[in-house]
């Protein structure tokens, strides 16, 4: 039985100004609450309070990051903007990739839910980002996931990691989207604060771009997809418990988890339904329902349109009894979308939904005027200027202060650490390194993800980048990679963000793709900590300045603060995603050697004695301090141009970027992935340890067919890119020989590299 309680209507709110309201419990500060009263000229109703509190939360309003994020816009030049069809502020950025195709991509964090409930937290993270891509009118093509956990052998990691991986796989596999890449990183700072960043990329014909606009007076608002329930309501349950004594008959409602539960089948059907609706041209505007549910969707649609909006909230199909307007507006039930449709198209719209068994309900209409009005059984419970909910939330200039410990950290370099010397110690170090949790094979994780579905995956993990074909006729496709080295960011957040950008960029160019756009997922500690805000500010500036140097724009992003336990914040982790274009995916460069008989190995770039913050210092000495490797973005760009040219002319048969673990790691991986042996000849004039384990940026190991070697090396020399012939592919040997150091059979290397994660998590 639905209990009928006294509804806190607008008219009631106007006459009862002194009713105490639980704004603090909802996360609103005193002055924020006062501002809401000022905007409305009265106290908010419960429903309005619920809307403002979720929309003005850090997650939805970017209130602490806004002042810094502006820097992206300020630094983006017209030239960088040239290919952008939609940028920051839309559901996802969109870039023109040629031939009439547009590509949209975005990453989003689902960190806190994944700690509470790893499977559902990760699953709904995938679901949410996929709907963001659909909301642009695109067909989702692929997902990547960037994951970080506490120490690999920590008991809680055994709880969190398998659940997160199963959740990413369980949702993505059932949704039918290939998972083509991402990261898995372990560090003690992520214990209690795992990071689950999901990225989705989608494609559409450029003319089909859909934006979240509720325009055209008289157009209908249709809610479609799943029913609305009590899941994911979080803080708003405060309202229910405080105000609705009569409603306790709905037994157990307060015990519902605040983490949402995903239903990937419903989302798969919703995708196909949406694409058919887009194809028929009967969608004026569309918005997904994610964080903040209907509060977000209605206020964003209304404020982006040219009029107001009227919603009859009692029409929303519910799956729980006795839900209050505030709960309905705040519910984060998954797999829902909201569309704006012309009255003449409503019947066709509903018919398409019926074909796919998707529930669809007309819940409102676009009105003239500029108010968002929401009625509940004939009584008005919300009457607000929508922009004040969606876009004009509080903006904070949080204190920013470089932490004092930064100098100590910088001064404590790795030079004093004992380095291995002699062949035996180097061999032992190599075997230990490749088996360490951050360098070991990720196949225990990635084998749980379908990377084949839809038949367009050209490269996927363990390749440096995922490559997906978009057009079967022409072979046009995209490459996408995500990266971040949090330790480098801890040492220097500005440079660390640029190193993350450089590595992600390099991962894309090693496939032969041309980078065109950048997205980010900025994961940091508490915004109230001036030291954390300094890290954030520095990382944003580093990234934005880096993008200017590379000439590609940031088209979107996501911020996640408060990833910390007590005073211990996570390593600053600005995960950077770079999108590249291949005019024909058939020319992609694979990661493993052995594709051609007779290949020479060349090391492009220069190796310096850069081991501060390296994986070696971490694994062998548990050390973090000093100065991160130099970053030279002009060099990265040149490296990219050479790899792209090499790919076009068929001069490169394999390429693998050097990053964590240095040359040793890259050589082992390229052999094992290609199932082919090789011989590495080190430079007699440089310390073998430095050559093998330093993490200098701007380096790529390439294999070139012997016949192409002169042409390729001449090109490098002519364009000023340092290169060194560093070995040969030796298909007969079945081993990796590092001359003068060791010869290890591929079998032995494989056991070391692939054994670690199964041993920890099976």
């Amino acid at each position, binding site marked *: 039985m639905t209990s009928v309680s006294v509804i806190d209507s607008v008219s009631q709110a106007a006459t009862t100004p002194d009713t105490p309201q639980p704004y603090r419990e909802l996360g609103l500060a005193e002055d924020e609450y006062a501002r809401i009263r000022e905007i409305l000229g009265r106290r908010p109703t419960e429903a309005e309070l619920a809307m403002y509190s979720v929309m003005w939360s850090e997650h939805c309003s970017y209130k602490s990051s806004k002042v810094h994020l502006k820097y992206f816009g300020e630094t983006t030049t017209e030239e960088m903007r040239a290919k952008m069809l939609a940028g920051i502020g839309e559901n996802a950025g969109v870039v023109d990739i040629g031939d009439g195709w547009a590509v949209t991509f975005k990453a989003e964090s689902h960190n806190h839910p994944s700690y509470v409930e790893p499977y559902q937290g990760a699953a709904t993270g995938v679901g949410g980002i996929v709907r963001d891509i659909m909301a642009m009118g695109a067909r989702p093509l692929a997902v990547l996931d960037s994951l970080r956990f506490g120490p690999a052998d920590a008991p809680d990691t055994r709880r969190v990691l398998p659940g997160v991986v199963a959740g990413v796989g369980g949702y993505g596999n059932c949704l039918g989207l290939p998972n083509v890449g991402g990261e898995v990183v372990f560090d003690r700072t992520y214990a209690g604060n795992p990071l689950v960043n999901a990225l989705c990329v989608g494609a559409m014909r450029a003319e089909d771009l859909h934006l979240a606009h509720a325009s055209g007076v008289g157009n209908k608002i249709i809610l479609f997809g799943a029913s609305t329930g009590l899941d994911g309501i979080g803080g708003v349950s405060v309202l229910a418990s405080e105000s609705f004594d009569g409603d306790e008959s709905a037994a157990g409602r307060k015990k519902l988890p605040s983490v949402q539960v995903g239903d*990937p089948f*419903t989302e*798969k059907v919703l995708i196909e339904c949406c694409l058919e609706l887009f194809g028929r041209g009967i969608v004026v505007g569309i918005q997904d329902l994610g964080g903040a549910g209907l509060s977000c969707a209605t206020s964003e649609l209304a404020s982006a349109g040219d009029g107001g909006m009227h919603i009859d909230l009692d029409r929303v199909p519910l799956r729980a009894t006795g839900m209050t307007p505030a709960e309905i507006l705040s519910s984060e039930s998954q797999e829902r979308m909201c569309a704006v449709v012309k009255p003449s198209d409503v019947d066709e719209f509903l018919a398409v939904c019926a074909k796919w*068994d998707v529930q669809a309900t007309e819940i409102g209409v676009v009105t003239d005027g500029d108010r968002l009005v929401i009625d509940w059984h004939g009584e008005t419970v919300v009457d607000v200027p929508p922009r004040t909910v969606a876009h004009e939330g509080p903006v904070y200039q949080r204190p920013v202060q470089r932490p004092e410990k930064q100098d100590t950290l910088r001064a404590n370099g790795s030079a004093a650490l004992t380095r291995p010397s002699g062949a035996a110690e180097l061999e032992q170090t190599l075997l230990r390194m490749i088996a360490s949790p951050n360098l070991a094979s990720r196949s225990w994780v990635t084998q749980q993800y379908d990377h*084949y*579905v*839809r*038949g367009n995956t050209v490269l996927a993990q363990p390749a440096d980048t995922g490559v997906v074909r978009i057009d079967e006729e022409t072979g046009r496709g995209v490459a996408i990679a995500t990266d971040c080295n949090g330790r480098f960011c801890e040492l220097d957040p500005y440079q660390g963000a640029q190193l993350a950008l450089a590595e992600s960029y390099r991962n894309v160019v090693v496939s032969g793709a041309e980078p065109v756009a950048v997205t980010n997922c900025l994961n940091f500690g508490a915004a109230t900590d001036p030291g954390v805000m300094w890290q954030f500010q520095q990382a944003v500036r580093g990234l934005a300045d880096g993008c200017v140097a590379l000439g590609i724009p940031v088209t979107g992003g996501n911020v996640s603060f408060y990833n910390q336990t007590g005073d211990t914040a996570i390593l600053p982790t600005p995960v950077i995603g770079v999108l590249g274009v291949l005019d024909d995916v058939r020319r992609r460069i694979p990661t493993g050697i052995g594709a051609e008989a007779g290949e020479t190995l060349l090391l492009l770039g220069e190796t310096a004695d850069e081991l501060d913050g390296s994986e070696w210092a971490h694994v062998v000495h548990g050390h973090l301090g000093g100065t991160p490797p130099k970053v030279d973005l002009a060099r990265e760009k040149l490296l990219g141009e050479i790899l792209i040219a090499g790919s076009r002319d068929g001069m490169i048969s394999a390429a693998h970027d050097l990053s964590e673990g240095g040359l040793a790691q890259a050589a082992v991986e390229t052999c094992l992935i290609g199932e082919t042996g090789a011989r590495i000849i080190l430079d007699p004039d440089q310390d073998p340890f430095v050559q093998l384990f330093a993490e200098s940026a701007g380096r790529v190991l390439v294999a070139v067919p012997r016949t192409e070697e002169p042409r390729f090396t001449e090109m490098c020399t002519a364009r000023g890119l340092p290169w060194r012939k560093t070995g040969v592919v030796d298909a007969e040997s079945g081993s990796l020989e590092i001359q003068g150091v060791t010869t290890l059979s591929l079998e032995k290397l494989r056991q070391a590299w692939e054994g670690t994660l199964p041993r920890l998590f099976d």
Partner: protein
Amino acid sequence: MRIGVITFPGTLDDVDAARAVRFAGAEAVSLWHADEDLHGVDAVVVPGGFSYGDYLRCGAIARFAPVMTSVAEAARGGMPVLGICNGFQILCEAGLLPGALVRNAKLHFVCRDQWLRVENTSSAWSARYEPNAEILVPLKSGEGGYLADKSTLDELEAEGRVVFRYVGENPNGSARDIAGICSQNGRVVGLMPHPEHAIDPLTGPTDDGLGMFYSALDSLVAV
């Protein structure tokens, strides 16, 4: 030659199956789960995915779809039918093939390139292969362990109805390493691995899977 590819709500690999049909030189015809009409196709592929979400039991609901009534009838009349992954599960649920598919031994979804041995080269979907040919095809499933009682397994072996067998480490705990089986008349074949994802070395490990689609075309010409 027209080969139908069924789409249920939740089917994922229908576009891939249709592409494989085209690569083999036939016309791919989309069949909708709610439509009994097979639109005059000469053969049917029941592709992979998670039909109706597979929340109850894989394939348990799909077998009741109107299109499956027609497929079952056509299969009994000798029409070649191939069930891939979820399609295999559906054919088992529909009683067109014996046995059932259960969760993988390690309880994880497994996506990897898998070697298979072709042990029956007389079925409608395997005649193109050399006897005992080893082929490399993607496997991607969470409930791929083939299970049947001993007498059924013995019967399948005795009648030569184990069409594909896993080579090397058993990926999912399948009884007797069975990857795919066929009906008594050899016209209906079901397997867990995905031949439609091995039709082009650009997007798959090999083009070894094409042989299944060529086999079906051969068998249709032979009739």
